């Protein structure tokens, strides 16, 4: 038994949402396949690979946020929360930048006895390097 207080027009409007959800789901699945194929088979440079994959991931994330999370129907006040989140994100990235993770010149101070450190490449060494 249907317990609804919706009018016929309102119910039809809500059912059109279901069709939209299936369309968005189809788009997400197609994008996932394209992303997978792009990463597996496209002979592109690292930069083009990263830009392409992040673009596709952003579109997928946008579809989920806009339609499934109903961001489309939210008021503009929701975007206000992006301001402190974005600010803290930038602060975090900027504070991480001088971190040891980016200090390649740090590596030469390790001796062979130190655990896990990889010595810097000696210019005279005959090795193949691939980034």
């Amino acid at each position, binding site marked *: 038994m249907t*317990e*609804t207080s919706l009018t016929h027009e309102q119910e039809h409007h809500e059912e059109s949402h279901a069709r939209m959800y299936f369309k968005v789901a189809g788009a997400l699945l197609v994008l*996932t396949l394209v992303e*997978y194929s792009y*990463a597996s088979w496209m002979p592109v440079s690292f930069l083009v690979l990263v830009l392409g994959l992040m673009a596709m991931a952003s579109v997928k994330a946008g579809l989920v946020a806009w339609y499934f999370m109903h961001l489309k129907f939210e008021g503009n006040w929701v975007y206000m929360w992006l301001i402190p989140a974005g600010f803290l994100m930038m602060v975090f990235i900027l504070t991480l930048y001088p971190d040891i993770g980016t200090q390649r010149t740090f590596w030469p101070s390790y001796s062979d006895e130190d655990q896990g450190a990889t010595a810097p490449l000696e210019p005279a060494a005959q090795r193949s390097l691939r*980034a």
Partner: protein
Amino acid sequence: MWLFLATEVMFFTGLIGSYIVLRAGSSPTAFSDKYAPTTPLSMIPPDEKVNFYQWPKPYDTATNPLDIDLTAINTFVLICSSVTMVLALNAIKLGRPRELRIFLLLTVLIGCCFLAIQAYEYTHLMFFHHFPIGVSADGHFRPSTSLFGSCFFTMTGFHGAHVTGGVILLTCILIQACLGTYTPTHHSPVELAGLYWHFVDLVWIILFTVVYLI
């Protein structure tokens, strides 16, 4: 819920940002196809031909143990659970409680399927498969294996914990739905739980791309 999700955005931004910084700052010779991660160069004979990498490449079985095909299927699974979740919300808005219960149950089951595949992947990586020396010194891929290993397990582990919490939350919502709590005019817990679940899916979309494909 939006405020909570903003804090979660900051949490995962921290994890992904750290991953990017640590990866960008890795030594060009941190990984190789013939020696364990971070083997000192002084231990490698100078006349031996070795391919070095800054970070394990996707699909390179010599240095990267991750099964991208299985994880792509897992991404498909999680997207399906997002679809059933939004259909559950749509059902209660239309005043169809039976459909609500069915779609909520499907969402919970598909979420459990995602966790099961993750658990299989973890046990496969950590215990049941022997990987080449370029992946790990002892053949198993664990958080202690390498920087890549610790980053991978930290990021996917925290996401898995969020999915587990989401499954528990949705189970509670499902129980309430079975008790007839929700109506077309009172269903905000369903909507809020759905927001959290979609966020978890959104994070996985980004994680899959950053950790597995790049």
